[in-house]
């Protein structure tokens, strides 16, 4: 329920509901806006429409049974959710992952990141009125989904990353096809750049909108590309490395300004870095097992672990507590990046023009499955 209510309004103010069903909220999120004419004085997100009680469900399922459910958290980048969950189990049970599996994981995670960022670019374009790029973005994303489908068998929910490794080895011909896509993709990105940066309306709608200062971003728990857009070079892949990211050579991209345009640039530029990572991983891909032998029934020893990853949307972490006896997690807390990024949104949107609220909201790139869990 929203706290903003009609009883506290001045005569020139009114309440406006954006959502729960509204194309610019990217799912079932409701924004309650207190407006004075075109100006949004207060913004309050109302969430929970997609709450499925994932944390409770985890306590009532075995470790493996919960793995497919993690796909449903952030359904735009499910492999990242698989990774964070599996990583937590592996750390608790001290499972050694074969090197090849780690490389395959990184390739898949980065392809997923590119696909997710492409979706962001398309839908962001649509939100600020650049409809053509919506088609462009989806066209390229389709090819990446084909790639993922080749190996994982899925296009939306994968459950591909498995405790001890991955479920299947890379499909025949995957490496060649992947290399080709990685070669082609930058050409398309150049097209996007031309399309966006030569468009004055687009720039006007993004520049200086929804500025988030670095200190505020840190204090409000903003992570991921939104944080790097404020100029702080933090990437979990670099600073708290997992899998084989510490063996790869990549840069942490940052932008200055912390406005909507910076957040958009971040995603566009990060795709290049992801392409770089995929290419490196393909070059160094070792032979060997793609999955370690793990017990049929997973029963991690008593303990707790905090597993952190850099998902496309920011820091995705899980706090897993095991009691050492049962086959299901004793407690699983999911720290989702969208939830925390959204909590900082009202502060940046206060006082903006209504249309800017939409652009600002789109630029923080939330997925409601990730917010509501």
């Amino acid at each position, binding site marked *: 329920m929203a706290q903003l209510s009609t009883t506290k309004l001045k005569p020139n103010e009114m309440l406006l509901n954006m959502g729960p069903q509204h194309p610019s909220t990217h799912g079932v999120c409701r924004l309650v806006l207190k407006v004075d004419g075109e100006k949004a004085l207060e913004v309050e997100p109302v969430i929970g429409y997609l709450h499925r009680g994932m944390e409770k469900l985890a306590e009532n399922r075995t470790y493996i049974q919960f793995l497919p459910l993690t796909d449903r958290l952030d359904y735009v980048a499910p492999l990242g959710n698989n990774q964070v969950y599996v990583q937590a189990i592996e750390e608790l049970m001290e499972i050694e992952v074969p090197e090849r599996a780690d490389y395959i994981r990184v390739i898949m995670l980065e392809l997923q990141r590119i696909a997710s960022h492409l979706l962001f670019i398309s839908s962001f374009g649509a939100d600020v009125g650049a409809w053509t790029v919506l088609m462009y973005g989806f066209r390229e994303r389709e090819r990446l989904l084909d790639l993922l489908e080749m190996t994982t068998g899925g296009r939306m929910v994968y459950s591909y990353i498995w405790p001890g490794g991955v479920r299947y080895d890379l499909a025949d011909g995957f490496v060649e096809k992947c290399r080709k896509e990685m070669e082609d993709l930058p050409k398309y990105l150049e097209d996007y750049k031309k399309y966006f940066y030569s468009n004055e309306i687009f720039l006007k709608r993004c520049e200086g909108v929804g500025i988030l200062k670095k200190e505020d971003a840190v204090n409000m728990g903003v992570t991921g590309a939104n944080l790097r857009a404020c100029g702080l070079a933090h990437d979990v892949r670099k600073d708290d490395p997992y899998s084989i990211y510490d063996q790869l050579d990549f840069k942490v991209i940052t932008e200055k300004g912390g406005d909507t345009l910076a957040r958009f640039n971040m995603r566009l530029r990060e795709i290049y870095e992801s392409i770089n990572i995929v290419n490196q991983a393909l070059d160094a891909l070792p032979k060997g097992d793609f999955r370690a032998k793990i017990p049929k029934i997973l029963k991690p020893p008593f303990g707790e672990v905090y597993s952190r990853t850099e998902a496309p949307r920011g820091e995705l972490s899980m706090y897993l507590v095991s009691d050492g006896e049962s086959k299901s997690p004793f407690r699983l807390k999911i720290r989702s990046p969208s939830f925390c990024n959204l909590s900082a949104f009202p502060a940046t949107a206060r006082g903006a023009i209504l249309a800017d609220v939409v652009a600002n909201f789109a630029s923080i790139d939330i997925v409601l499955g990730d917010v509501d*869990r």
Partner: protein
Amino acid sequence: MADEERPEEQPEAKPEEVTVEPAEKTEEKPKELPKAEEKKEGAEEEKPKKKKPVPKSKALDEIKKALGDTVLKAWVQRERRIYIAVKGENILDVAKTVQEMGFDHLSSISGVEYEDRMESVYHIWSYEKRELLTIRTLVSKDDPKIDSVTSIWKSADWLERETYDLMGIKFEGHPDLRRILLPDDFKGHPLRKDFELKAKPW
């Protein structure tokens, strides 16, 4: 790993930091944290002996020095993962101290319900030190409440609301403590162990 805080099951707990023990050292054994429902962990403990040594953490030493007796227990789990356990009523002081020491990113707040107690667990990352500090605080189960840390980290706002919503821990001093994910008229707190999932009636 195993965070067995049962003093009686840790015959080898020494005050030193560096041993070849798997997880954590008990610095001072807490009086109230033990007695979780984990019974036979002692046994599991023995096995993973030959792990690599637990690294030292300068940040943890600093924290222990700054907080003194407030810290009931402190240990290093692995590289970049340090833990302290404190009493619930001290959380505000502890939070203030560690924030001033550079732990600036409150990553998450989780409520955990054990058989005899509840815990509010704070995971705090330091962008400068690059370490993740976990603060485990004890909360009474009969009347779960703890001071809010929203005055220190603004990110605590929604995280505390979520913990209140799902776990029922009251955060005193929170500016606007109400449900966030569940509807306002929802009864109970679903992450409590006594809240059972019911099958649909068909």
